């Protein structure tokens, strides 16, 4: 018996520990709402890049609309699109565009995207590498690293140390956008990779732990241990800053999307509109991304996701 008891206690602890990343059930009295008969549930899951915005907004939205309960889960862009396509989700989160393959697959669901913000994917390295002088790389160099043609930091002006190349799960939005930039193909292979990670948290943690890693990460997730390097184009170095993304200079930019089956309707529409409202856009900004309702950006939103 003691074994079983402890299992429950520790399982509870684990849920608390992982609550932020794996399962967010937000809102005051979420449980009572779950039991209430007349509550409407909005099921949301997908990209861990879009997740911080939506979970913050969901919390606010629920305090205003006590009859609505919102569940927000992680999983990745592919999971968000797949879940919406198969109607297991009301809103999918995607930090990339829906591929034509996915569009065909879920043709009957008539997938619809709503852009709620802009972001960029930076090429990131361990802080040790950045400090040793690797401040920027060209597209060619990053590509060669991912292809396994460049395997030592020495070859690009860094210390004599092997490169730990970190790839992501194939369906992840960040990977699609990054590979599209490097190789012109969102599902390009990366034979030089040593590790494969999933969520932004996981990738961030693995790069921070290493002293010689390279990876791809949304700019909002860059910190002191995981440093975004500049992209070299000719003699010019474009740093991964919000300013450069806003001005359209940084080459690996993307839209942050909400995916719905058809046009959003009912409560879902209310929630989507809330995210697009002036107030909702604040959550985009505080999460470290670029709101679409700032005048400088409206022109770009209509365009494609990478320049």
């Amino acid at each position: 018996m003691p074994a079983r008891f402890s299992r429950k206690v520790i399982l509870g602890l684990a849920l608390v520990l992982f609550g932020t990343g794996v399962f967010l059930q937000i809102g005051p009295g979420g449980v009572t709402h779950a039991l209430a008969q007349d509550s409407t549930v909005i099921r949301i899951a997908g990209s861990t890049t879009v997740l911080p915005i939506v979970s913050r907004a969901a919390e606010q939205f629920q305090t205003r609309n006590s009859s609505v309960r919102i569940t927000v889960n992680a999983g990745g862009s592919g999971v968000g699109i797949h879940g919406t396509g198969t109607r297991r989700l009301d809103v999918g989160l995607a930090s990339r565009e829906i591929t034509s393959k996915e569009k065909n697959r879920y043709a009957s669901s008539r997938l619809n995207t709503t852009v709620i913000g802009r972001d960029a994917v930076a090429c990131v390295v361990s802080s040790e590498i950045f400090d040793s002088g690797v401040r920027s790389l060209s597209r060619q160099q990053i590509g060669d690293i991912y292809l396994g043609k460049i395997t030592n930091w020495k070859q690009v002006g860094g210390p004599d140390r092997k490169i730990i190349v970190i790839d992501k799960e194939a369906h992840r939005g960040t990977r699609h956008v990054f590979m599209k930039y490097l190789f012109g193909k969102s599902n390009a292979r990366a034979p030089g990779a040593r590790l494969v990670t999933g969520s932004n948290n996981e990738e961030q943690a693995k790069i921070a732990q290493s002293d010689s890693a390279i990876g791809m990460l949304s700019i909002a997730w860059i910190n002191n241990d995981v440093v975004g390097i500049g992209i070299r184009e000719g003699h010019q170095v474009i740093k991964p800053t919000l300013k450069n993304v806003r001005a359209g200079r940084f080459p690996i930019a993307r839209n942050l999307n909400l995916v719905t089956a058809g046009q959003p309707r009912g409560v879902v529409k209310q929630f989507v509109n809330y995210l697009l409202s002036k107030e909702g856009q604040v959550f985009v900004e505080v999460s470290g991304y670029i709101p679409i309702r700032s005048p400088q950006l409206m022109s770009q939103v209509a365009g494609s996701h990478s320049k």
Partner: protein
Amino acid sequence: MNKHSLFPERGPAFWWTGFTALIAAGTIFILFVSLVIESVPVFKSQGLSFLWGADWFAGEAYGALPMIFGSLMVTGLAVVMVLPFALGSAILTSEFLNGRLRLVVKAAMELLAGVPGIIYGLMGIAVLTVWVRDVFGLIDGNTLFTAGLLLAVMILPTVMTLSEDALRSVPGEFRDTALSLGLTRMEMTLKVVVPQALPGLAGAVFLGLGRAMGETIAVMLVIGGIDRIPQPWFNLFAPGQSIPSKIGREAAEALGFDVQWSALIALGLVLFVMVMTLTSAGNLLLRRAR
């Protein structure tokens, strides 16, 4: 021989227990059948090359070999690493500790056996990967070896406490007789108690092996997640992938859809067959040895 010899008594107890046994056996059967049915599409499109293909890229190719290899490698490693420690501590607890202390050790072990994989996974990613990297001077700590080591730690309590039960269940007369014949305590343990407890010990190891083979999240966080067989193949300090870890990473994206889903189910089938084969092979060997 009358016709009731197989089931001499058919009261309510017979029907009730029969019913529950049928449910238990039926569950396994249904699981197996549905795994087979759902994995048909991948075998249709890939043929048997699914089993020995070394390349897996969703939407293009599905080869299970790196995952099969990774699973066997980490499980084998875990069992090899856990055996001396589990058996050693089981023998100490069962044969050399007095009643009270023994209960304390047992309780601690049973408590540990109930800790879910995610806790080990978090410890693994926070501590073990860094430790393995620094101790062995590697460029990175996410390796097959790390996964094996973590699994060894995870199954230690299970294997230890079940082994202890097996040793404990050897009747006291065996010990008394051995000691009265002039054997030392150590000789008694190794020559009399352990051989007597062998089936139970093997059962403990197989149960641990089953848990190790099926463990998902802890392995997923430290194995590296790359679908590749290391070069050379016995290089344990290279990243890899196990079957549950692969399924864990891709299942949500493929749920109920397409060849990719079928390929993941087929991986599950392979795992099922592997655990079954190992367990029954172990039982068979054991029966022959006795």
